[in-house]
């Protein structure tokens, strides 16, 4: 494929959704109306095909064309792996800050792009059925197209500054789509919360970018990340600076990927339409943080403390979110907490490189693999939950319906596949990736230096994996099993999904079932990913039979407990809730993290803000007004003399004349 053609393909991936977004925004409300999905569909199809071409054709051909690297020389030079670069225009160029609009695709980009565009296409198809009677139909598709554009650009960015631009842009789309039903006060509040909490993370990301710019003199990925010797040099010149950069970048990742304690926005984000939750808040945008940390592996390698923090925060998040998910009754919130928890799993894996240098590549591979499989089964679960919601008249509280498996057979089967994949049932997608993570953690816990630390994290991971299986099947059994019960909003005969919604569900179900087996144990995924800049290809592969056995047992045990609690003897949960009331309340209350957040940060800041206005009014402005009174005060005495009363003038004049006369007389 010629170079020009490669560049066109690369540009088409983000450009098609952008054009669709503009067309829908301009023509949608008046002209397209309920056909507004057409530009979006076609653009996403184009993007998806182009991503596949990039993945399967362009990058392999680039790799073959490149001269083989000589062993030993590569260390001091910039090593990029196979990549395609398409330059656009100069954005700004001031002093030593350069920002160009330039696309750069390498292996990790191609994988992300294929996943993003593929899932978006399916979600957009589902969305056209789900949103079919909504007055904001064109707005929905315009925002979704804009989101896909931003997300594609995010992973195609070749520099930190461009990454930041689209990091914010996906945040904007998330804001617009969470607040899609802006008439609902809760949706409006959730949208704002998501944006502001994300900004806290962005603060870290900006700091990281400034530090990189200051110490590397560039923000280009190839310049900064491609040269390990350069990173070591910077680290030697300024000890600790790489650690600091990594902590800052990770703060950014924590915001976007909803890691503890910044996870508070994600469950609220479920106020958005369900296809949005599936696309943005499960499969794609929230994984941007994982992508960022994986992308910056060459920096994180030099910062073991930051890596350990990544693992630690990931473990804490995974555990807390899993514990909260146990008691939630809102189906979408269960899935949201599950997303938070699974993102925690990915970070747990990413940080394992701290244990030993050989573990870096397997760790990143495991994290990215989980990201990849998670996108399919979690999108599936959300869309299935969406179709439940659709049939139940927008009711999503699991206590108000049950036994839907006969009424909604397609939804039931697809949800079951997704739930099984998430729980880690052997051979399904989630099983392989979670297995990889557990295996990496096991390796890390054998390390001499940080063995204990990673040992603890491993135990947490196993516990969280068990909880995952349990809460997922709790949701499944509560929704689809038991006596058939519908809320009155649903009418008497809930409708199963229309074909346009059913096919995306079926496709995703096939992916959730098979994609792990297809690319995991065959090492297709790992071998492809490891050509990314900063990773070293592994040559030996082995299956971790022990870990696989263990995780199978965990999954089955979790499902078994869920069956026992919610199908066999449904009185157990209530009994447990009664006997372990404090724990139940904490879990049900989401660890009161929202309240803690409000109490420790929001209210104090609002108090300070109120105080600031008072200080402004009475102190600062008071001083100004006082100073303003000085001339008036100085004039008190002179003013008496200019009172405008003629008699006083006359008397003063009389005194003056007498004095003058007396003076004159005495002088002579």
């Amino acid at each position, binding site marked *: 494929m010629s170079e020009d053609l490669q560049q066109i393909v690369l540009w088409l991936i983000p450009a098609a959704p952008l054009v669709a977004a503009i067309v829908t925004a301009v023509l949608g409300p008046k002209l397209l109306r309920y056909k507004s999905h057409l530009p979006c569909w076609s653009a996403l199809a184009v993007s998806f095909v182009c991503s596949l071409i990039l993945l399967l054709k362009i990058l392999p051909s680039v790799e073959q064309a490149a001269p083989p690297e000589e062993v030993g020389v590569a260390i001091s030079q910039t090593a990029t792996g196979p990549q395609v670069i398409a330059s656009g225009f100069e954005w700004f*160029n*001031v002093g*030593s800050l350069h920002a160009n609009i330039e696309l750069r695709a390498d292996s990790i980009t191609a994988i992300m792009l294929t996943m993003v565009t593929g899932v978006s296409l399916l979600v957009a198809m589902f969305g056209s059925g789900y949103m079919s009677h909504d007055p904001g139909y064109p707005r929905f598709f315009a925002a979704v197209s804009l989101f896909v554009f931003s997300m594609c650009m995010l992973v195609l960015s070749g520099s930190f500054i461009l990454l930041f631009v689209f990091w914010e842009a996906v945040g904007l789309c998330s804001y617009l789509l969470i607040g899609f039903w*802006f008439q609902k006060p809760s949706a409006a509040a959730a*949208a704002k919360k998501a944006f502001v909490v994300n*900004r806290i993370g962005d603060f870290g990301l900006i700091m990281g970018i400034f530090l990189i*710019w200051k110490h590397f003199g560039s923000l280009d990925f190839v310049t900064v990340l491609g040269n390990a010797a350069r990173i070591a040099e910077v680290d030697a010149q300024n000890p600790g600076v790489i650690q600091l950069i990594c902590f800052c970048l990770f703060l950014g990742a924590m915001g976007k990927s909803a890691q503890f304690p910044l996870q508070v926005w994600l469950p609220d984000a479920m106020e958005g339409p369900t296809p949005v939750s599936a696309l943005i808040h499960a499969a794609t945008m929230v994984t941007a943080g994982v992508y960022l940390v994986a992308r910056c592996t060459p920096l994180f390698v030099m910062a073991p403390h930051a890596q350990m923090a990544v693992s630690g925060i990931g473990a804490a998040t995974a555990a807390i979110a899993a514990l909260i998910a146990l008691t939630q009754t809102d189906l979408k919130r269960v899935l949201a907490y599950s997303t938070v928890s699974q993102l925690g799993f990915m970070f747990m894996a990413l940080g394992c490189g701290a244990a030993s240098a050989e573990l870096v590549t397997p760790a990143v591979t495991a994290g990215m693999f989980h990201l990849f499989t998670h996108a399919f089964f979690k999108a599936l679960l959300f869309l299935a939950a969406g179709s439940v919601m659709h049939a139940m008249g927008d009711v999503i509280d699991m206590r108000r319906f049950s036994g839907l498996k006969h009424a909604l057979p397609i939804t039931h089967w697809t949800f079951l596949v997704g739930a099984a994949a998430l729980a880690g049932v052997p051979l399904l997608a989630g099983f392989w990736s979670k297995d990889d993570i557990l295996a990496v953690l096991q390796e890390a816990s054998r390390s001499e230096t940080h063995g204990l630390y990673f040992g603890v994290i491993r135990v947490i991971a196993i516990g969280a994996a068990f909880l995952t299986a349990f809460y997922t099947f709790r949701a499944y059994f509560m929704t689809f099993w038991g006596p058939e019960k519908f809320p009155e909003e649903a009418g008497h005969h809930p409708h199963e999904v229309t074909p346009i919604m059913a096919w995306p569900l079926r496709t995703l179900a096939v992916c959730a079932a098979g994609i792990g087996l297809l690319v995991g144990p065959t090492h297709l995924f790992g071998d492809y990913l490891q050509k990314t800049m900063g990773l070293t290809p592994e040559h030996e592969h082995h299956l971790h039979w022990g870990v696989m056995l263990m995780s199978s047992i965990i999954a089955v045990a979790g499902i078994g407990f869920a069956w026992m609690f919610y199908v066999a003897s449904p009185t157990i949960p209530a009994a447990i809730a009664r006997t372990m009331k404090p724990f139940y309340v904490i879990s049900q209350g989401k660890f009161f993290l929202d309240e803690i957040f409000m109490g420790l940060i929001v209210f104090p800041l609002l108090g300070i803000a109120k105080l600031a*206005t008072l200080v402004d009014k009475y102190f600062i402005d008071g001083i100004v007004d006082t100073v303003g009174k000085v001339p008036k005060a100085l004039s008190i005495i002179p003013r008496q003399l200019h009172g405008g009363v003629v008699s006083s003038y006359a008397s003063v004049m009389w005194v003056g004349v007498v004095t003058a006369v007396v003076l004159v007389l005495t002088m002579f």
Partner: protein
Amino acid sequence: MIALLFISLLIPAATALLLMLFRTSLNQSSARWVACCGSIAALLFSVLLLVQYRVQVVDPFGSGVMPVASSVDPASAIQPRVEYRQPWLKTGERMQLEMYFGLDGISVTMIALTTLLTVCSVLISWEAIQDRASEFYAAVLILETGLIGVFCAFDLVLFYVFFEMTLIPLFFMIAIWGGPERKWAAIKFFLYTLAGSLVTLSGLIYVVVHTSHEGLTNPTSLPALSAWLATHPLPESMQMTLFLAVAAGFLIKVPVFPFHTWLPLAHVEAPTAGSVLLAGVLLKLGSYGFLRICLPLFPAACLELGLPIIGLLSVIGIIYGSLCALAQRDIKKLVAYSSVAHLGFCMLGLFALNTEGITGSVLQMINHGLSTGALFIIVGMIYERYHTRMMDDLGGLASKLPMIACSMVFISMSSIGLPGLNGFIGEFLSLAGMFKANPLYGVLGTTGVVLGAWYLLTAVQRVFFGTLKEPHHAGHDAVEITDMNPREFLALAPLIVMCLWIGVRPAGLIAIIEPDIKAVAGLFENQDDSPTEAFVQNTTNILNHNAQISIP
């Protein structure tokens, strides 16, 4: 090109004169049409000026060489590219005052911003100003004249005359057409800023007299003064004192914390057009003054005092202004406090004293003019419809006024610095510059990014989202509340387009202003002290400031 400048300067003045002369015979409708035509004509000519400047001055031969006006000393940190000088007064044997108009990239862009915002102001006052319309529009146009004058004045006398001239029309705009507290607000605004600028004046007089004694023949000419001071620097202690004196007026004008208290009051009371011009351009006179006078004339003092002290005040201003904005219930006051925070970014960049920071600062001046101008216009639209600005009385307006709501979301995003819109570039460069100069201030300033999103999105949420809530006296005069009308659209659309354009393609704008910024930043930056720069492969074409080529 200088003719174009004079035309853009004189059109508003002539229109204002016309409006004043025929104020008894012009009714509201004809007055606004006259004003509209006058301001649009001024806009067209200033845009033409900008285009011509871009074509003829900025890199006319593609050689990386930027011509300077023939009489300018290349050592000067202020380099008008085009100039018009006319001897004016001769005092004594040696001192000669002259009328010195000039243009460089910064002034050309600021003039275009002024004329654009004036057109918006006229359009937005269309219905709002009912009585004494003729005088109102005359005031708007006199204000425009004064603002353009400041931006093209390259000598201290003209600068100061135009600088003070802007006070009078705005004083009347607030005092006559303002809100219930208008008299107090107008007096406070007038006296506070006047008091500050008198201190500035005394400092400037001292500089002029001192340099004239030392032998400079044209001490009021800014380029000459700056070139002369580059070779005969003032003693450091004198620089400090003079810097503080000159800064006094500018600090109040910007306003930098804690000299800002006149601003919220003036904004709340001023009519929409007044607020737009006040926030959009008038405040920039302060930062422009710093850039034009303090930085080139007192470089040592800027390093010693400006960076640590004004930098700190700006950081406090960013955080404090944001917090105050967060606690406001009056949406106009919220926008006013957000101005304090945004100008904090502007000053932070300026006193980073490096190319990145100063460029960010100038961009922030322009961006703040566009986005805050637009915010005031939107607040004005809401006020015109509901006669309230209290956020508690409003809610869910997006379902009733979708176009206004969309614009509000867009402008808020621009104001909180979303990349891809204009606000980001200014903020990012200012912060990056400060991070390079003083990391602590840079870090603290960046917290404003979080707070900025918080207060503005809270305002958006409370006014536009949620269930529809309208004040009950809304339909009082039986006028149906409708979405944006074409006139309002015309007032807002150019600003929105500019926000997007600057956000996506800032390079063109930066190319216009950068040479002038490099000239100033050259005073502070050692050219070869950055080892990291050598690593950057992306080389830039370095402009050769010493080249003197007269304009063909």
